[in-house]
């Protein structure tokens, strides 16, 4: 279990006590959709404390394609859980689409996840007993969308990821790449504020990896905000911006020169 006991003193001695977020690469004048300020997370198991995040500042604007990059144990999974509202900070602040997420209860967090976040997981996490379109409609069910509209939107989302002819196929009848496309369609269907992808290519062969990454490129070109968590540099290179995380801290934040893949997709 996560112990959410606050250790405020740590925030004060944080190595990067920058109150003002630096101007974001490629940012417009609008407020960032995702904003972490002094975000810290300490896990406690018995008497052992582990500081997974040591006070992170991060701002992501609408339409950005950001890769969060780091080796395992660097804290990137914790960032993913925090950004995805699956876990809460022990200190600092997280604002998503202008809402301070930290004070919300379980039901409100569920609603935020439903409305604002489209998850893509490493293991796809599709329900094997349901056909593709039923998997895609799941977020809409919890969002209270009427039945007839759900099917329509689920089919549109599947068409958008290139699976227009696979509505009725169950996950077992689809290739890994296709399954991840279904997962992407599920992430898209609720029109969330951001797509949050956790090692989306971790379980895929190289062909499927290219396939899924091309899909992300395409979504980026169409203006989606995408946060991709990975430990593979080749994957991270596809993003417009890479945030390097190490030992619970942001060690580098760089804008990529990625004209080539962008042109390919846009063409």
């Amino acid at each position, binding site marked *: 279990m996560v112990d959410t006991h606050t250790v405020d003193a740590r925030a004060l001695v944080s190595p990067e006590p920058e109150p003002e977020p630096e101007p974001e690469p490629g940012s417009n004048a609008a407020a960032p959709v995702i904003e972490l300020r002094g975000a810290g997370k300490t896990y406690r198991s018995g008497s052992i404390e582990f500081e997974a995040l040591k006070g992170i500042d991060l701002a992501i604007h609408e339409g950005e394609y950001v890769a969060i990059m780091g080796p395992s144990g660097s804290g990137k999974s914790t960032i993913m859980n925090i950004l995805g509202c*699956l876990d809460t900070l022990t200190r600092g602040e997280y604002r998503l689409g202008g809402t301070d997420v930290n004070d919300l209860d379980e*039901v409100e967090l569920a609603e935020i996840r439903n409305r604002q976040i489209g*998850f893509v997981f490493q293991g796809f996490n599709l329900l094997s*007993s349901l056909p593709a379109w039923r998997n895609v409609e*799941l*977020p809409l069910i919890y969002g209270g969308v009427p039945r007839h509209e759900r099917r329509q939107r689920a089919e549109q989302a599947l068409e958008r990821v290139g699976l227009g002819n696979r509505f009725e196929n169950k996950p077992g009848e689809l290739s890994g790449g296709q399954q991840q496309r279904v997962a992407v369609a599920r992430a898209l269907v609720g029109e969330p504020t951001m797509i949050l992808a956790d090692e989306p290519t971790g379980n895929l062969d190289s062909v499927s990896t290219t396939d899924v990454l091309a899909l992300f490129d395409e979504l980026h070109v169409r203006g989606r905000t995408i946060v991709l968590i990975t430990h593979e540099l080749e994957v991270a290179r596809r993003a417009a911006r890479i945030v390097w995380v190490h030992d619970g801290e942001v060690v580098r934040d760089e804008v990529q020169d990625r004209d080539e893949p962008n042109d390919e997709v846009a063409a």
Partner: protein
Amino acid sequence: MSWLESLRTSWSAVYSHALRSTLTVLGILIGIAAVILTVGLGLGTQKDVSEQISSLGSNLLIVAPGSSTDTAGTRGGFGSSSTLTIADAEALESSVNAPDISGVAAEKTTSLSLEANDTNWTTSVTGTTEAWLDVRARTVSLGEFISADDEAASAAVVVLGSETADELFGTQRVVGQSVVISDKTFQVIGVLDSAGSDSSSNLDDVAIVPSSTAASVLVGGTDRTSVSTIYLQAASDGQLSAAYQEAETLLLNLHSITDSTAADFTISSQDALVSTATAVYATLTILLTGVAALSLLVGGIGVMNIMLVSVSERTREIGLRKALGAPPGAIRRQFLIEAAILGLSGGLLGAALGVTAAVLLPGVIGSSIVVSPAAVGLSIGVAIVIGISFGVYPATRAARLAPIDALRSE
């Protein structure tokens, strides 16, 4: 998420684990069917017994020799000694001494062989009087019953039970035929209507002769004046206990016994027989129903077990649903509805099986089963309640799972 959506989701979960769901439902099903059947069997037996006892006649008191109040065990067993005599029966007929008794029929019964043409048939030959027909609530289908004249004349006439007549004469005309009993030829003057059988004897396999004839011809020796049973008919339902008192007082006097606990006869009423039998079967029914209810409880635990397995097996699914925006309430509801579906299907199928068996079984086991709609409705209700209450714990566990832990599990 609406209830309808929860219902759809739950149904597809139940449906996609068809075998497991079926086995779980089976536990409830058997419990419900067992409850319906045992309650039905209990009620049916009670009904059978009270009908059998009622068929003895209405407002009936039965005087039998021997004592049931004896605790010392010094006297002979029930019915073994013939302490009742024809004189007792005649005294009870007196409207002065026993004004509340409207009919008296003394029976003297011996098992004898009847012979007609070339056929032999052993049956219970009963010597009695005219009043027997009324007191025992019987009717004659052919010919007539023995009369006061036959009694006075010790006439060699016999009235046969319907089965006895069948055995001896088959399809031939019966009335007017001759039957040889103990080397004496009797003329058949009537045949009784069928009355089925009571708990101890076949009421249709009898031969009735005038009691005077029975005393002088069929039974010799000292046993001549004794009778095996005296049937008394009270003038009405309300006079039954008065009739009981009169009969007891009179017989104690006649037998010169002062202490009623030392009586050498036993008077029992039809009501007493019915209520005793009913009480016995009611107790038995409660006992059996308890056993059946236990099996229902076991079925409920089965539901809980399967739901717990289902929750831990679907931890990832729960995590995913939560990540996609399912609030804890929706998850709890999904699992509760699943448990309720299992309980309800078990209840409905169990009720169907129980009712079907209740319709088919009586033909096989020969006792009737009364299906009470209340028992059926109640057991279906109980099945749902069992499903839900045994589902609460697993559902709550599912709802409490943290999404990240749930997603991470393999």
